[in-house]
């Protein structure tokens, strides 16, 4: 069960994402942004960081990296793809997910343990959770405010495509407390907080993040 993790210039959490995959029981495979080949992986993680220095807009330049052409095609064909933080931004810039991220409403970089509610436990990356389960993972970002027009937000809500919602505090002004969304098919998920930093005892706020990675392994096995 191979899960590819893409490294762009400026990626920070690629090693943590590969470690999370390994701890969850999968085989991580490092993918390179300049290589237009997914090497037959069963799923892809686009990790957090500051791809291309976040120049232009967060995720904007990474969207045109050679590997992303392959990711976009494969995602449309049903390959599970998870974008975390900067990876979420890359997925919106790729138009695989709607909306966009702008700077936090308070304009500060934020790092905290964040409670989330799993709103949709039927996606490729959330099927190991119970619906409405509350989990705690790490949140750290500067451009984490999810925005979309009202029609898009209504459609996301109506189609059950809000995957994760902030609980207790909205850390960045995101529309309707949305922390993560999925595409229609549920194979592509983007979320702003970092489940890969909550997979191991003694590191991070707990082990809740591990279920994101075991979910996709389960999904791939049963597919």
């Amino acid at each position: 069960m191979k899960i590819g993790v893409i490294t762009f210039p400026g990626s920070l959490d690629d090693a943590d994402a590969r470690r999370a995959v390994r701890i969850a029981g999968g085989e991580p495979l490092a993918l390179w942004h300049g290589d237009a080949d997914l090497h037959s992986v069963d799923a892809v993680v686009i990790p957090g960081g500051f791809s291309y220095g976040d120049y232009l807009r967060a995720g904007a330049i990474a969207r045109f990296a050679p590997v992303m052409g392959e990711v976009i095609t494969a995602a449309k064909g049903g390959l599970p793809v998870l974008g975390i933080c900067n990876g979420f931004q890359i997925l919106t810039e790729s138009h695989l997910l709607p909306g966009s991220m702008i700077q936090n409403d308070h304009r500060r970089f934020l790092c905290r343990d964040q409670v989330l509610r799993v709103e949709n436990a039927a996606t490729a990356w959330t099927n190991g959770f119970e619906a409405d389960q509350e989990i705690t993972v790490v949140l750290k970002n500067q451009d984490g405010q999810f925005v979309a027009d009202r029609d898009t937000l209504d459609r996301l809500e109506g189609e059950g495509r809000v995957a994760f919602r902030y609980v207790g505090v909205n850390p960045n002004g995101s529309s309707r407390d949305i922390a993560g969304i999925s595409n229609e098919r549920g194979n592509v998920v983007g979320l702003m907080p970092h489940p890969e930093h909550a997979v191991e005892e003694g590191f991070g706020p707990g082990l809740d993040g591990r279920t994101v990675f075991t979910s996709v392994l389960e999904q791939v096995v049963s597919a």
Partner: protein
Amino acid sequence: MGRIVVDVMLKPEILDPQGQAVRGALPRLGLDQFTDVRQGKRFVLSVDGEVTETHLASAREAAETLLSNPVIEDVVNVHELTTDEPEQAPITGAGA
């Protein structure tokens, strides 16, 4: 060498935290008459020779694909930078 200017602004309904930060700083300089500030981006694209319609069409394509994100931003201006227009518009005083 010809140059083409592309100006991109956040859509009016999108919060502009950078503009707000600037708006908050101006009164500290004693400039308290500005009720809002929006911060945009200007790109200057250079080409060999004179700017042609083909260059402008390519610049518009660049503006709509990479240089702006249509979800949050508007391309407000794509035009040739004429020789009498400096790359950075100078600050002109009252009556200038």
